[in-house]
Structure formats: C-alpha cells, structure tokens
C-alpha cells in the first residue's frame, strides 16, 4: 500500500519585482502592481508596498497570501510596540523584527522576498534586504523578485556600491539626488518589464524623506 501523495502545493509565486534605493536624506521604495499565477494575470492593480511605521516601508514579492499574513503580523506587533513604548518603531528596529518574524517560520517559511526601506535614527536613508527565512543586511540599494536578476546588475553598474570589506566602513548610500534616484528606479522597471513576463502594468513608487511620505505612479507595458 503506497502512501498517497498530496497533489497540491501550499506555495504559489504571484510574481512581481521590488526595488529600494537609499539616499543621504531620503529613501525610494518601488514595486510593480501586477499579480500573476502561472501564465495568467490575476490583476493589474495590486500594491506590494506596505507602510509598517512612519519611517519604515516594506515591499515584498513572492507568494501573496504569505506576504499579506506577514504584513498583518508586523502591523500587529508594531501596534503593540506603540502601546508599550509610546513611540513609533525605528527602521533598524523594524528590520530586526522582520528578520525574527521570518526565522520564526524557518521550517514552513513565508515565501516572501522582502526589501525594507526607510530613514534611520539619524535621518539618513536605509535599505535592508532579506531572503525568505530572515537572513538580512543593510545595503545602499536592493532588488528582489522576478525581475531582480535583470535590475541588480544595472544598479551595481549605476550606483557602484563600495565593498563591505573596506576599512574604515564606507557608507553605501547613493550621492544621487532624490529626483535622480526616482528616475533611475523608473528606468529599472521600464527595462525589467521588457524582458520579465511577471513584471509590468504599473509602477508604484514611495518616497520617504524628512517631509514625510509621498507616492508616484508610472504606467508600464501591459503585455
């Protein structure tokens, strides 16, 4: 009697790409708004970006049900934090919380590929990049998701990240201005959309700086 196998998978990849770039006093977090399954498009108008705290914005691609559950867990934890400490969580604190939350499900992971962007305690832009089980590091820029393989080499070329092996440690934040960084992000997505079938429809860009949070949108190819 051979044991019956399940013929369904608890995971699915709903596609999409996310990017974040840190500047001297701003942070840009961007994602496309396409949600797919297999070779079908489910919807062209789905946000992958979630504001977790005043100075922390997370963008996640991967399995949408897990991403939503992760966002809910973090939002709930942040609310508790606010009740207990009477202040918002800082971006570095949220970064650690996200890592711990992901590792908590190390043996049935959240299939979520995250990029956390925001302003650190000194007001400088910061970007943290993660894998599905919580391994993370602070970087000057990052890209995750289906178009990441197309975007990351381009950002490496344009932003020339200093080696983390250098002493003294060199800051990875880009010297680009806010407008230049937004333009760079738009270029990244326009390019990724050409060759990645899971990226497209519309680009959502969130910009965090000392004045607060604002959003910009750009149409992308829908094919």
């Amino acid at each position, binding site marked *: 009697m051979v044991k*019956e196998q399940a*013929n*369904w998978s608890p995971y*699915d990849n709903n596609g999409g790409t996310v990017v974040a770039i840190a500047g001297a006093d701003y942070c840009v977090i961007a994602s496309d708004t396409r949600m797919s399954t297999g070779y079908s498009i*489910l919807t062209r108008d789905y946000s992958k970006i979630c504001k977790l705290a005043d100075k922390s914005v997370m963008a996640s691609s991967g399995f949408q*049900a897990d991403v*939503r559950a992760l966002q809910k867990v973090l939002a709930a934890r942040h609310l508790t934090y606010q009740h207990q400490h009477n202040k918002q969580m800082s971006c570095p604190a949220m970064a650690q919380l996200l890592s711990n939350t992901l590792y908590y499900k190390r043996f049935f992971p959240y299939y979520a590929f995250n990029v956390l962007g925001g302003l650190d305690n000194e007001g400088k832009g910061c970007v943290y990049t993660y894998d599905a089980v919580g391994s993370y590091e602070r970087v000057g820029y990052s890209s995750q998701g289906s178009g990441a393989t197309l975007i990351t080499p381009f950002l490496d070329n344009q932003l020339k990240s200093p080696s983390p092996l250098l002493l003294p440690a060199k800051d990875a934040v880009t010297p680009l201005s806010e407008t230049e960084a937004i333009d760079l992000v738009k270029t990244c997505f326009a390019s990724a959309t050409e060759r990645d079938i899971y990226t497209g429809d519309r680009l959502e860009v969130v910009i965090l700086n000392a004045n607060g949070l604002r959003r910009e949108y750009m149409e992308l190819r829908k094919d």
Partner: protein
Amino acid sequence: MSESVQVTNNLTNPEASSQRTLYPYVTGTSVVAIKYKDGILMAADMGGSYGSTLRYKSVERMKSVGKHSVLGASGEISDFQEILRYLDELILHDNMWDDGNSLGPKEVHNYLTRLMYNRRNKFNPLWNSLVLGGVKNGQKYLGSVSMIGVHFEDNHVATGFGNHLARPILRDEWKEDLSFEEGVKLLEKCMRVLLYRDRSAVNKLQIAKLTEEGMTISQPYSLKTFWGYGAFQNPTVGAEGSW
C-alpha cells in the same frame, strides 16, 4: 507495570491522511463576475462533476451571504457547503449583536481569506476558488480567494477556466457603469465561450444580481449555441497535422 502510549497525529500516522484533503471529488467549474452600474452580476453553471462524469446538474454554486454579499464557488462542492456553514455562523453572531451594524462584502472577503489561508497552513485545504461580491452603502466590491489564500479585488473576476477564457473578454469589453442588460450580455458571452471550450461546463446556468436592495438569482436557463462555425467543422484547415 508498563503501559504503552500511542502518540499519533497526522504526520506520523499514514492512515490519518485520509482525514486531510488530497484531491477533490465532486467539483464545480468556472464562476464569472463583474461590477456594473447598480452592483454586481455573477454567473455560474449548475454542473457538479464527479471526475469526468456529469453527476449533478442542478447544483446552485452561488449563495447570498448576509444582507450585502453573494458568494460563488468552484471546486469541491462539499467544501463549499462547509464554507456556507461557517458563514451562517458568522452572520448569525453578527446579527445577534443587534446593533444595526452588518458585515459588508469587504469584511466577508477578509474572513474567507483568513479561513482558506488557515486551512492551507494546516495542510488540509478547502478545495475551492471563491468569488465574493457585494454592495454596501453604495460601495461596490468584488473579490476572489483561492484555495491557498491568494486574494485580490478587481472590477471583474473569474475562477478556473474563466481566468483563461473569460478574463481576456472582460479586459477588452468591460467598462465602468454597464447597464444591467449590457452586463448580462457580457456575462453570457463569457459563459458561451466557456461552454464551447471547457469540458466540464454544462448548458444550464444562473445569473445572480446583487444591488443595494438585495440579491436576486435567475431561474436556471440555457444559452443558445451554434456549432456550425467553419472553424469547428474543419478545425485543421490552415494547420495540417494539428487536431
């Protein structure tokens, strides 16, 4: 004295897997739904297939939920009936508060998402793809939930084959503020294509209309079909060797 204690659970006991869903038995096929001027229109045929046998031909796959919503389901029919029981209890408790408040379609959609996701987490899914539509205080809402908890809302949704055959038609022809007649015509166009091309579709369907006033579901009826198209008679003309 020695007592042997047997500890069994779903992971160590192979027979317990008969308690968890492995595959569906009686299934319904596509559900298609759109927003229109006054609310939501949803269509589903009345077939319940048992593998390749068309076992049941009068299955109502759309049901009203509370005052403001309608739920359509494809997939395992018994799991759909289970979901209706869960929703019954949800609506009952909502009514028992007797506070004038009532669960709207957004709330019911969220509840269903959590339900499906939690079952997926326990490796015992409800084998359905759900469509939840409704109107509350003039706000129209139309959402979808899959068996593993993937969910979204849009102006038009479909399950199963509907995603492949109906959505493209809707992307081309849906527009804001369709009249009731235009909406029904559009849904019938989608259902006709599904009838031609989906093996498990059956020519007996219902259309549910949901507005601020409530839900009405049509009597079952069938679509007129035409099988005399040249392409149907000679399907391989222009592509010799294909079928």
